[in-house]
Every structure is written in C-alpha cells, then in structure tokens.
C-alpha cells in the first residue's frame, strides 16, 4: 500500500493534490483495497458547486457502494471520463490514472481537516 508524500489525505480516505487554485481528488490506496474490485464510478457534472465535505461521486465495487466526499469547496472543472470505460484504474493506479475530479477552489470557504502522509499513516495505524 502506498501513501505518496506530495498529497494530503482525509479521514474518509480521500486524497487531494492542490496546484494553485485547482484541487485534484481521488480515493486512497487503502480505500480502494478495502472496497475491492471497483466496477463503476459515478462522476459529478462539470460546473457543479461543491461544499467542503459534500458527497460528489460514488465508487462501486461488486457488493459495496461508497460515497466520495470533497475535501475542499469549489466548482467541478474536470472529471476523469476514462473511469467510465476503465473504473479499474482506481484499483491499479489510485493516485494517477484513478483520479476522479478536479475542482477550482473557492477562496472563502474552509476545507475539511487534511492530513499529511505521515499523519495519514498514523491515522491508518490507529
């Protein structure tokens, strides 16, 4: 299981990478492992305004469904259409080809609590 150092993590096992005012989201390696083989990802509509902590996508395995929550508030600017045909990217490359959505961060809202890789590692161990 990998936990890249350049990302931030949430208690709901999402990862976020922030480049300027754009945040890219996905679910962590731990989360994809717990869900098992991903068979479908329901993506948000582009242009949708999200509050921090809002459920914006749904990840499905054969026998489980999990909501995915946005760690920061903003507007959805891009989604990973590739997951429609190949949802397995979430399993095989959770931090790369398995990204789910990109959001333009709104300046005036607080984000949910984010952890560093070390903090997330500790959180998983607890």
């Amino acid at each position: 299981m990998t936990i890249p150092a350049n990302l931030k993590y949430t208690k709901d096992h999402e990862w976020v990478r922030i480049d300027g005012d754009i945040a890219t989201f996905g679910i962590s390696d731990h989360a994809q492992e717990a869900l098992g083989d991903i068979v479908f990802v329901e993506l948000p509509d582009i242009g949708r305004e999200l509050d921090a902590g809002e459920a914006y996508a749904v990840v499905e395995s054969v026998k489980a469904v999990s909501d995915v929550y946005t760690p920061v508030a903003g507007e959805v600017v891009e989604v990973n259409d590739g997951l429609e045909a190949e949802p397995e990217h979430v399993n095989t490359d959770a931090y790369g080809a398995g990204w789910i959505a990109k959001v333009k961060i709104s300046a005036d809202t607080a984000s949910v609590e984010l952890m560093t890789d070390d903090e997330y590692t500790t959180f998983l161990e607890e």
Partner: protein
Amino acid sequence: MNNNTSKYSATQGIQHEEALLFEHAHEAPESIHLPGVEGAVPEALQAFMRQQPANIPGLSEPEAVRHFVRLSQWNHGIETGFYPLGSCTMKYNPRVNEQVARLPGLAHIHPDQPEDTVQGALELLYEVQQWLGEISGLPYVTLQPAAGAHGELAGLMMIRACLDARGDTKRRTVLVPDSAHGTNPASAALCGMHTVELKSGADGRIDLAELKAHLNNETAALMMTNPNTAGAFESDIKEICQLVHDAGGLVYGDGANLNALVGVARPGDMGLDCLHINVHKTFATPHGGGGPGAGPVAVNDTLKPYLPVPRIVKDGENYYLESTSDTSIGSILSTLGQSGVYVRANAYISAYGRQSLYKIAEDAVLNANYVLHRLKDVYHVPFEGVCKHECLLTDELQNKHGIKTLDIAKRLIDLGFHPMTVYFPLIVHGAMLIEPTETESRETLDSFCDAMLEIAAQCEAGETDLLHDAPLSPIRRRLDETQAARKPVLVWPQ
C-alpha cells in the same frame, strides 16, 4: 480429495452444454399452428406497422423442450436437494398445490369478470385472508401486496396514514435494527420516511436502552423481524412494543421469519400493529427462481381503516370485492393480488389444518437447533442460546486458515448441498445463516452437518486449495462478477 467425500455428493447425471436460443442458428421452422380469425390487418393500423422484425428465434417444439429441460438440469431446487438458505424458508412445495392451482376455474379466470361468476375463487381467497389474520393474531388482512417488500410498503403507508389522521404529521422516522433486511430501509424511503439504525445488543437482540434513546416525537414506527435475522426470539417483545406505543409510534413486523412461530405464538398477541407475511416462505408456495411471491399484510384495529383496496368481503353466503373506502391508502397493484399464489397457500394450510399447523414451527425449530448443536464446537457461534427456525454461525475459526464463508459455501456445493445464506445479517463478520426448515429428515440434516464438519476438518488439515477452488462439480465454476458489473452485457447482440 478425501475418499469419503463421494458419499455426500449429488449424483452427477449427464450434463449437456446448451447454446443460447439465439445460437440455434437455423431458419425458423413452420410457425406453430394457432387459432383465431384469419383477417387482414385493419387499414387504420397500416401506418403503424413494425418496420424491423424483433428477431425472436422460433424453435420447433422438440427443440424448445430440450433447450429448457437442459437449462433446468443446471439448477438446484428444493426437489433436487437440501436448500438451507437462512431467512428464505426453502421448504418442500407440495405438488398437489400445483395441481389444484391449475384447475381451469382457478387458472383461467379474468380479474374483471362478474363477481357472481368467480364465487369459488373469492371463497378460497377469503378463507386465506381470514386464516392469515387468525395465524398472525392481527385480524384484518390485505392480499394485494405482491411480495414481502411490497407488503412493507403497504404497511408503512398505512402507518403513515394512521399517524397523519392523528395529526402526527411530523412522525417520519422509522427505527430499524442493524440486523434488518435491506428492504426495510428501502421501503421506508419509498414511503417518504427515513430510517435510523438501531445497534443490536451484545446478544444480537434489540437493546432496550438503544431503543429508548432513539424514540422521540418524530418516531413513526419500529420495523422489526421476530425472530430476528440472527435466529433469536426477541424475548422483550412486549416491552419493546409498549415502549414504541408509549412514544406515539407503531410497530411493524417483517414476517420473513414467521415459520418459527406459526401455530405457536402470534405477533398480534405480542403487541405488533402490523405484519407482512411471506407466503412464498411460510406457506410453501414455490420461489420459482426469484418469484412470484405474495406479501399480504395483517393489521389490528388501529390500522384497519387504512387497508388497501380492493378487499374481499363476505356478505351472507356471497363474496365480493370492496373497492371504495374513504380512509384506505388506495391501490398498490392493478389487481386484487397474486391470486394463484394464495390458492396454493390455501391448499397448504388446508393440509395441516387446525390440528397440525403448529408442527411446522416445532419441527423447524427442532431442526435448526439440531444443526446448531452439531456444528457449535467447530464453527463460531456469535450469540449463545437456543435459536428459533435458523441458526447463525461465522467463519471466525476458519479465518486463521485463510478460509472464508464464501469458500465454505462453495465447497458445500461440491458436497451436494445448496449453501446457506452468506454474509447476512451484517451484524457479524462472515455470517452463515442456516435455515433447514421442517421438511428435512434427520438423515439429510446429518449428512449436511457431516459435510460442514468435513469442511472444517479440511481447513484444519490445511487443504485450503480444495476450498478456494470450489466448486468443481457443477457445470460452471466460480463466475467473474467483477467483469459482469464492469462491462454489463444484459442482452445478446443482434
């Protein structure tokens, strides 16, 4: 492989591969000879004629029969062997019930023909209506719901109507134990209510403190299954009902597990307001590979005014359908119900009658406890004590050998048995819920228990490959459910 395995195995007949209907690629034979008026298509319809044929493959009768008989031989049914699916009550389905349901005056009658021409059918259905009221202790019954989940919806609609009539329009919360069937929260949502989950107590039963903590002025109902899905009777049932009633709510019973109580105790006497009955479970109508069922709902005086219409009413010696009522929740089906299912249920109750009905519950409970007793030292039993009609085990002791419930289930197939219900209820990890039913002999129960013990022994002996690879005997081995869901192919391409 262990030599003595073979004594448990289902006899393997010749198993044929069988193509899809669409692959029987030859020109369609001469059309089946049909009755009717050989007239022209009316002129007014000509503008609407179908342009492309549907491509429904037509087979000759011998080909069609062989196709479906071969498919049938890939199936395991109650008539083939033991089928201990927990909370499903897979008991023997008497053949005479099939015979009488096919009598022309019962099978070939229209729901809208004049009532005076269907008095015999109405009489049979009325009888079932009354008997289900008597058996449940909730005297007023609707036959309209088509299955258990449909009954849940009907029951919750009645509860909501009753609360609304009291002016209690803020009560929209349904309390559901975490051991409940998934249909319970789904039905509540469909009725415009939301569910709050009650965490089960350490004994798998409803925790009174947890219940009290969640009862308030928004509580519409408690939705419960008794015996619950862990196979345990809720011994505090009267207190539970009292607490809910005192808080202004009503108690809904999921009757999936009524087989443990029939003729022995009645949900109405326990304080429940409403109960749906799974006729295809308790009253032995065949499951048919997923349906049809019937989910009649029995209610007490509190909910009687809200019963769906139509209801069958008796006036003197005549039966008729009562279709109007000011307080009814209305209709939830286009007909009066799954009549053919109730004809079979009537025949089933008639066979036991007043004298013997209780024997169903007694032998069902006896059999479940017998299985529990024989397996309890080898499989983990999460909740102590006697069970009712089903017993709950887990794979905890097998996990250390890398064996999970799924492997045990699949290995049972190789040993000639249908697996138990797996991974339900959700309150324990790796659940195995075994419901033998009353129609199984001691010999069958013993051979099943022997197979379960053999599997446990194979775990201990490290023969894990055998279990991971199972099943090896049926026409297909483990199927790739991930591929099926990732790239769904639900129809054969043209």
